[in-house]
């Protein structure tokens, strides 16, 4: 569902009326405009729609408390269709036509990458949204990412270390030829080299690939001990199906690692039991104790049901809500909308959010990453509610959140309960 500014304004007005806002007097300067492009259709669409619900929830709640600096917050979001070619135009429109005060990045590395030179040249604050190493080349000093990872090591370490513990000596890499997967692949290759692992197979595929039977067959023929996959939602789904159709070989101990999309509720429920055995990264699974997150998830679930979007909201929504919280703290902390001051504030102070405390390092990423690797176990088909309770995604790393040991080899884990 693509939203024009008019739709957003109408929705905002409707929500304001329903929240009883008319009685409240906002400051006369006009609203504080927060603008972004969000992939609501295309490969990242399922995640983006859920994230949007969380952001709108934050906007409502902030306005109920009196807005920012006494002014109402107005939220403008366009749909970039997960297409990086659309984002430069959209952000230029946001800045020059809609004249927004604060920018949030689109969800995902791929749609965000083209916007980095733009915000750097104009000296603008950009709140990152679950992208991976997108600031590495541009080195913008006003970039703050909401995702719980830092560099490739923080992401792949857990996967690689567990594989080594199981005795894996060789590894296969399968990565999409796009910004996110390539960033991750470069880091992962370095880690494999440091661990002394043999790379039996290393292939990139074009993002539009839909048939992976040939690639999976080649991986099987290479007989690796573990398979590290770096893919985006559409490909992740196709790869999981291909693995179930063709099989990856009985010698593979662990499969997965960097597959985006297996955290989206609609995909989890449509793949169902096909997910079993896969070890993949996640940002939050039920059972992890973050302050205020369970309450947030309940408030979120109500809004999500109305919007007919991901009812569980584990992956992106809490972290998008956290973006809102961080903006709020920066604005209130500096008592201004001055982008430079806000950037300094975000750099120096520890942010308190529903996904825990966040402190930023020089590159705008988390100083203390908190990515988990979890293995899908005992998942049945066509059941969303099964994911609400802990147990379907067993956390195997890091130790702080661990709930179980990994079951290997991969083929055995597929049948385990």
């Amino acid at each position: 569902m693509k939203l024009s500014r008019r739709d957003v304004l109408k929705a905002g007005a409707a929500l304001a009326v329903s929240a009883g806002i008319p009685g409240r007097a906002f400051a006369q300067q006009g609203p504080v405009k927060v603008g972004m492009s969000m992939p609501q259709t295309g490969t990242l669409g399922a995640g983006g729609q859920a994230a949007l619900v969380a952001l709108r929830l934050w906007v409502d709640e902030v306005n109920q408390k009196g807005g920012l600096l006494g002014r109402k917050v107005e939220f403008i979001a366009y749909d970039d269709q997960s297409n990086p070619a659309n984002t430069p135009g959209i952000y230029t429109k946001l800045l020059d036509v809609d004249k927004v005060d604060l920018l949030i990045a689109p969800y995902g590395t791929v749609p965000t990458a083209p916007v980095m030179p733009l915000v750097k040249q104009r000296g603008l604050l950009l709140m990152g949204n679950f992208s991976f190493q997108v600031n590495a080349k541009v080195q913008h000093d006003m970039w703050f990412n909401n995702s719980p990872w830092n560099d490739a090591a923080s992401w792949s370490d857990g996967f690689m270390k567990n594989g080594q513990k199981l005795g894996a000596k060789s590894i296969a890499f399968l990565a999409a030829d796009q910004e996110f997967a390539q960033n991750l692949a470069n880091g992962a290759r370095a880690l494999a080299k440091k661990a002394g692992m043999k790379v039996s197979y290393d292939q990139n595929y074009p993002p539009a690939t839909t048939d992976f039977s040939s690639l999976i067959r080649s991986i099987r023929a290479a007989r690796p001990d573990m398979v590290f996959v770096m893919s985006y939602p559409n490909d992740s789904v196709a790869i999981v199906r291909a693995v179930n159709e063709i099989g990856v070989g009985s010698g593979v101990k662990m499969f997965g690692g960097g597959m985006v999309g297996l955290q989206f509720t609609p995909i989890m429920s449509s793949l169902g039991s096909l997910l079993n055995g896969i070890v993949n990264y996640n940002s939050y699974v039920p059972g992890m104790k973050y302050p205020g997150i369970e309450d947030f998830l309940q408030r979120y679930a109500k809004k999500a049901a109305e919007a007919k979007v991901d009812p569980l909201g584990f992956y992106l929504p809490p972290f998008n809500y956290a973006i809102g919280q961080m903006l709020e703290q920066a604005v209130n902390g500096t008592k201004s909308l001055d982008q430079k001051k806000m950037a300094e504030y975000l750099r120096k102070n520890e942010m308190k959010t529903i996904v825990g405390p966040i402190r930023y390092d020089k590159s705008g990423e988390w100083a203390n990453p908190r990515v988990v690797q979890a293995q899908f176990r005992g998942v049945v088909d066509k059941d969303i509610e099964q994911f609400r309770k802990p147990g379907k995604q067993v956390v195997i790393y890091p130790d702080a959140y661990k709930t179980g040991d990994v079951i290997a080899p991969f083929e055995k884990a597929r049948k385990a309960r």
Partner: protein
Amino acid sequence: MIFSFDLLFEALIFGVLLGCFYAAVSIGLSVSFGLLDVPNVAHPAVMILGSYATYVVASYGIDPIVAGVILMPAFFVLGILIYRFYYEAFEKRGTEAGVRGLAFFFGLAFIIEVGLILAFGVDQRMAQAAYIGSSLELGEYRIPYRMLVAFGVALVLTFALTVYLSKTFTGRAIKAVAQDEPALRLMGANPVRIKQWAFGIATGVSALAGAMLIIVGPVEPALDRLYIGRTFCVVVLAGLGSMTGTLAAGLILGIAESIVLMMLGASWAPAVAFGLLLIVLGIRPQGLFGR
């Protein structure tokens, strides 16, 4: 790049299955462009429309192939309408119409593509069936059932159409109209009615082709661009007007794509059809069995 005879053999099998599928997908174009000389670049787009129609019908619990067959009469009518429109607007008016006819079909393809995006979004759609997702295990080799089903349907379709064109009266009239229209007129048959009928058949077949497409893999509205290359490659390689040629050409393309996929990786596979097309156009434009 991993090379082994096992992999090569599997690639060949896959290539044969894929090739037959490509042939079935192109056979409608073989009729409309090969026989009737209609510059139908919208053929893949109509086929994708068939895929989406299959998706909608199949969502009521009907098997996709059955859904495709159910849709064939509707698409037959659609084909007649399109041809009628094309004839009235362009073919009647003579040679200058060639450029405009081409532009018309290009515009039509685009409208269909965007219409699908508006109706279904840019997201991929897949069909669900018992045979999608599992494979036939022959020793070390795994052959996905979805490919076998598509292969089977494709063979039946190609065979049926070839028999129709050579054995029935209307079929032979269609071939006649392609070879010598004035002669046919002298014999009392109305060439416009026959061409209309043929175009209808070609479009009806596209409905089933669309059903096969969504069984073989996920579809999205922009997929027609890739299939323009594949279908025209098959039709040109076959030689205009040859039905058996279409099967042979399809197999060649399928095997070529499968081997390139295995040896050079997934990045080069989309270019195979177009590259082969350019080579054929450059060296032997009349194709393998052309008239």
